[in-house]
């Protein structure tokens, strides 16, 4: 990028003049505030930042940021962002989406953006419910969920968004929580620095239709026993005074949780976000049960592989190196093949 000197901006610079219209108490407010205070850190001018969203409560996000933004149609934001990113490598492109937008109607675009490793940052606000359509179950709602469209309980098995992203070859996969600004911003920072697709699942509370869905991860009484904070290069421990650890039992594909005192220190797993084999991150993503006990947050996986944008750009640049004056090249193109002249 050409601008050598980072721009000095403040959170105020990123607030748009639009009135924020989420329900009072919505977790989206916290995420928006975290984003507005985080963006100045990047030193990227406002005009070079673009937020693209789909449809849903979370997708109103771009309206509230004083950058470029597009509130598009349901599920299609990753496709639109792909076109923008691949044609404009000078821009930083964020996608804001929800569990319905990204995993239901837009599932195909999400997995293909991740597999291509398009240089976009995808923030999936997961509240496990359809909010904007007033309370139907979503593809992350648990089986048995009673909603307006499932009065006797849902029969749909949910997606695990982290597992899905890893299965789609994502090069950066993380999870964070709306109410923990420090953690949220730390994950956003790492996502922003990643070259290629970054997928961030943000647990977000819908206080109207699915209030308290992640309460066990927030409540000081329970969170220590439920939440596992991943730090690259650090042993994976959790609980009050690191009472518990994560291990990889011999002969098992998956990971396990044990009491710190009963496990030899050498068996405690050290988190490696850069592990080439995604099986490790996948095993981490399966640690949590349906009751959210043992939910890891932080960066599951962050590996470097060429982005789609780079690969496309390299081919374009190689071709353009041979280009002459465009109209002359066009004339040569039209006159190529079997031609003949009539005098």
């Amino acid at each position, binding site marked *: 990028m050409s601008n050598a000197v980072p721009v000095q901006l403040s959170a105020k610079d990123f607030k*748009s003049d*639009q009135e924020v219209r989420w329900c009072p108490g919505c977790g989206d407010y916290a995420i928006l505030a975290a984003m507005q205070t985080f963006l100045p850190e990047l030193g990227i*001018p*406002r*005009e*070079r930042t*673009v937020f*693209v969203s789909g*449809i849903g409560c979370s997708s109103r996000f*771009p*309206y509230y*940021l*004083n*950058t*470029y*933004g*597009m*509130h*598009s*149609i349901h599920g*299609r934001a990753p*496709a*639109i*962002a*792909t*076109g*923008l*990113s*691949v*044609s*404009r490598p*000078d*821009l930083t492109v964020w996608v804001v989406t929800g569990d319905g937008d990204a995993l239901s109607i837009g599932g*195909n*675009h999400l997995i*293909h953006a991740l597999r291509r490793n398009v240089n976009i940052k995808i923030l999936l606000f997961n509240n496990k419910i359809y909010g904007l359509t007033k309370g139907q179950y979503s593809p992350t709602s648990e089986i048995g969920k009673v909603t307006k469209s499932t009065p006797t309980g849902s029969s749909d098995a949910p997606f695990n968004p982290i597992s899905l992203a890893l299965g789609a070859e994502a090069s950066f996969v993380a999870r964070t929580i709306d109410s923990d600004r420090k953690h949220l911003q730390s994950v956003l920072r790492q996502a922003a620095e990643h070259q290629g697709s970054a997928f961030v699942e943000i647990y977000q509370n819908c206080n109207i239709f699915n209030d308290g869905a992640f309460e066990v991860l927030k409540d000081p009484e329970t969170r220590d026993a439920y939440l596992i904070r991943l730090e690259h290069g650090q042993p994976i421990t959790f609980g009050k005074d690191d009472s518990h650890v994560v291990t990889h039992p011999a002969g098992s594909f998956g990971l396990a949780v044990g009491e710190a005192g009963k496990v030899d220190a050498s068996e405690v797993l050290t988190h490696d976000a850069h592990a080439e084999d995604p099986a490790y991150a996948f095993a981490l993503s399966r640690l949590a049960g349906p009751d959210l006990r043992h939910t890891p947050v932080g960066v599951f996986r962050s590996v470097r592989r060429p982005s789609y944008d780079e690969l*496309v750009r390299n*081919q*374009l640049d*190689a*071709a*353009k190196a*041979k*280009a002459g004056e*465009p*109209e002359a*090249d*066009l*004339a040569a*193109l*039209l*006159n190529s*093949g*079997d*031609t*003949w*002249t*009539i*005098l």
Partner: protein
Amino acid sequence: MAEHREGAGQAGQLSEHGHPAKEIHQLDRVVIRFAGDSGDGMQLTGDRFTSETAQLGNDISTLPNFPAEIRAPAGTLPGVSSFQVAFADYDILTPGDAPNVLVAMNPAALKANIADLPKGGTIIVNTDEFTKRNLVKVGYDANPLEDDSLAGWDVHKVGLTSMTVGALAEHPVSKKDAERAKNMFALGLLSWLYSRPHESTMKFLEKKFAARPELVAANKAAFNAGWNFGETTEGFAVRYEVPPAKMAPGNYRNITGNTALALGLVAAGVKAQLPVLLGAYPITPASDILHELSKHKKLGVTTVQAEDEIAAIGVALGAAYGGALAITTTSGPGVALKGETISLAVALELPLVIVDVQRAGPSTGLPTKTEQADLNMALFGRHGEAPVAVVAAQSPVDCFHAAIEACRIALKYRTPVILLSDGYVANGSEPWLLPEISELPDLRVEYATGPNGDDGKFYPYLRDPETMARPWAVPGTPGLEHRIGGLEKADKTGDISYDPANHDFMVRTRAARIEAIDVPDIAVEDPSGEAKVLVLGWGSTYGPIGAASRALRQRGVNVAQAHLRHLSPLPKNLGEVLAAYDKVVIPEMNLGQLAHVIRARYLIDVVGYNQVRGLPFTSTQLETMLEEVIKNV
């Protein structure tokens, strides 16, 4: 029609091979149909013959016709693939209603095509394939080559396969490869029969088989064997010449509609000085446009093969937002899927070209066959009031100019434009007088660079008073940060607005700005000035309608012809033009979609003439129909 205007031959001379040179008859127009199994290489054979013919300076028009299956079971009727080429010493508009010559590589090809060959026509048939098994496969009880069922035709029985294999006996190629070269034998024979130059085919073979020199030699040898067979056999007493047509001076190449369309998009990018981005998902019969555009990175073209049709247009729309000349190419099923995104582009007021190479529907329909039944979808197929501009291409070469026109409208008026082509013009080909780049329209437009309001602020939906287009403020422009989206926008500011009066105003404004697009008046061809009947067409019916109108006039029957390039908005003078005639006839390859629009808009009781057979109209059927209408006026 005078197809066989035979001239004096030059008998008695010796050919280069030392045989007495055969008599040469001159013809003004010939239509040949190459037909065989899908695996027989008939498309390639037809293509080569066309290229040789174009080099000779004849006017040409081609019609490939192939099944949707890549390889239907060998030797069956569904597996028959054909390529028809018409060439003449005058300006022709269609690939011909019926062939004069049928090359049938197997019994299935004979059976599937014989009904189209008028009695007296020539059949060149590959006898080697007329085995009992192959005959039974297509329902022949007896071998038609051995009874008198082909008595009315001039049948040449040639062992194309066995003679090819024989000719290649000394070549180091497998029997299978030798057999596969039989299409080159047939091409050599036909090239001899119609006195075609063979240099371009030799060059083509060298390039095609560059990695396998033994195949270059074998295919060349097969071609020469076919040529020499014609020269020596007593089966062909005469050979023919079709002299060059009187065509405008200049450089020419033969071009299919899909290639011309792709080159038109490349040219539009150059003339707009914008990068071109294509988002596409493969679909018959549009994929060749993706293939062609993917070759032109040097000219600033990026192609993204997306995961589906919806993503393809999404990618294009994202690039349009970023300031590219954005295109998506597809066929009818794809347009159906793209509808919601087209609607978004209508709301966002961004330039976007959607190419629909129409094929026969509904659903998967006849994917390799032509139809014009997507007009309603192009005009009306979206939710809400979502008007777009619609442009149609009328011939293979015209696809180039129609593409440039679609881009011009999209860029200047910041709107989605649907460009309608169809399988007939997409796969058909004709000679193209190559344009001078300097004569192509200048498509440059300006991005917004600063505030546009009197108060020094930026208003994303403040319109240009002339074009009614909003500013194209691309991300990266300092000071113009703004948000757009599918929610209704307030006039000028573009802020979300649920105000009833504003919505009413914006809906009417979006309709008005499409109606206000500057499109040229429609021209009428009415040489006598006394015609009472006007035949109005759009898209690929131009060829057969034009040929029928010419034929009628040659017989002293007056008819006026007009053809629509712009379907939305319609030309401003159209109502006046229609009102000047007693009857308006509209032939369409659908059940009357344009007729419906014309009736509704101009309250004129047009006569529809409709056919949906997956094939273009023949000029003869239109000539007969028009004469009937004219008689009864």
